[in-house]
């Protein structure tokens, strides 16, 4: 069985870099993007198992990414992270069929657990 593929979209470069560093140690194949546009282009080419995306980005935002991913690959899980840690954005994200929601600062261990559960099909 080939390795699970994870996509990370965040306009903060360090977020992608650090998540990739940690997740690759777990044996995942990780690709990072600084904005949604090239990420969605990439998604058209290939299916990813989990997409971790920032909610608030210039251009296409996290909610738009969620909708596009669900349209292309209904089984792919989406995990949302955001610096806007307020209740409204969390509720909006969870209502939109999102797998999990992380306010920044992100605990990488928790993120890894969440990705593992997503891959196992556990909410």
């Amino acid at each position, binding site marked *: 069985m080939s390795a699970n593929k994870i996509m990370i979209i965040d306009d*903060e470069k*360090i977020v992608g870099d*650090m998540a990739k560093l940690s997740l690759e140690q777990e044996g995942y194949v990780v690709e990072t993007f600084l904005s949604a546009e090239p990420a969605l282009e990439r998604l058209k080419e290939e299916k990813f198992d989990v997409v971790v995306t920032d909610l608030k980005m210039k251009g296409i935002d996290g909610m738009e990414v969620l909708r596009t991913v669900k349209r292309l690959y209904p089984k792919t899980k989406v995990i949302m992270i955001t610096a806007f840690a307020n209740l409204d954005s969390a509720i909006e994200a969870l209502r939109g069929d999102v797998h999990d929601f992380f306010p*920044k*600062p992100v605990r990488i*261990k928790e993120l890894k657990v969440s990705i593992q559960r997503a891959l196992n099909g556990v909410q």
Partner: protein
Amino acid sequence: MKVENKIILSNVFNIVLILLVGFFAMQNLNLMLTKLRFVEIADDLNASFLEMRLSEKNYFLYHDESALLDIKEKIDSTVKSIDLAGQDISRAIGQTNLDLLKSHLKEYSEMVDGIRLTSRRDVSIEATFRTRGKNLREFSNAITRLERQGVNNIIARSKNVLFYSFWAVMATAIVVSHFISQRILRSLREIQKLAQSISQGNFNRIERLSSADEFGSVIEAINSMSEELRNREEELIQSKKLASLGILTAGVAHELTNPLNNISMIAQNYQEFYDVLSERNRLELMKKIEGETVRIEEIVKNLLDFSRPKAAKLEKREINATVLKALELMQNTLDISNVGVRKELGQDLPPLYIDDHQIEQVLVNLITNAVHAMDHGGILKIATRLGGDGQTVKVDVLDTGKGIPPEFLTHIFDPFFSTKGVGGTGLGLSVSYGIIKNHGGTIRVESTLGAGTTFTIELPIYDSNKNKRNK
């Protein structure tokens, strides 16, 4: 004096005038009635005197003895009626004339008595007798004529007085009403000016010299209204400040969360993979942490600039020197970003009264934004020129960048509003706005998507009188 009082005063004046004229006309009518009554009595007397003269003729021509008796009876009845109407006659012709009439009558009566006693009928007595009778009649006629003339005079005089007093009342009414309406219009114009200045946001009290009339009270009312408006405006500004404090807090939280998250994630990995990481990797991670702390430091610094704007140290300065200094500071950035500079600095511009460090900071902010808007290089144009009315100097900062979407234009001076994503704190323009406002100037923006953006700063020129007073 109140306008109401003025109107009352002018009315009182006219009423007094009308009363006086009425009183005068009444007097004249009374006098006329007296004179007419006399003329009536005089007509009776004249008739009696005529009969006396007839009897006189009968006595001398036809030797009619009873004629003397007739004359005597007539004289008695005439004396009686003169005594009865004595007061009226005296009032009409005066006591002197009355006495004269009486004495003429007495002389005539004595003559009759004398003739009756002696029964003489010679020529000399006849002549004297007839002369006295004639005198009596002529005197009476003369007085009657005079009194008729008097009545005519009174009527003419009354007519004149009524005519002139009518025009006097009319003239007073016209002049007074014209004066009062002019006065009202003038005051209304002043009030209109006042209301206009208030609607333009000038809430200063208007002092006025003569304020004892109704317009004084109106202006007083407008003054208290404008004071109330100013208080409300201050409250509004205060609440707006509170609202922007809310935006500020949310902005600070968001701005700080990203670098904190970065530091946190680096630190987590650093601990987790300490053994796996090479020394070079560890140093790289620490360097990244340092970079993120610099980012936080920058945000805090901008925040302090924003929340506590340093008091401007205003000095007499040339704007072109400040522009050149800002360009010098930005030269490296401009070169790296492949941005060319075009300067159009106005010559012989009047000096400004500015804190040149702060204005320099504003220009650096605008130039930085311009460079960021021109990802693929471009032209930055800086122009200085005299403002339209000669009381200001304008500085234009133009770029040939991507432009700002119209829906963002109204927000670009708001704190923490940024179109740059990660690159900006959203405080630069908001700080710049505060600085220019503190200088009594304005900052405006115009932008066309895909063509570029123009920021225009307008600053008041140095005014030796005003600026010294402010100092």
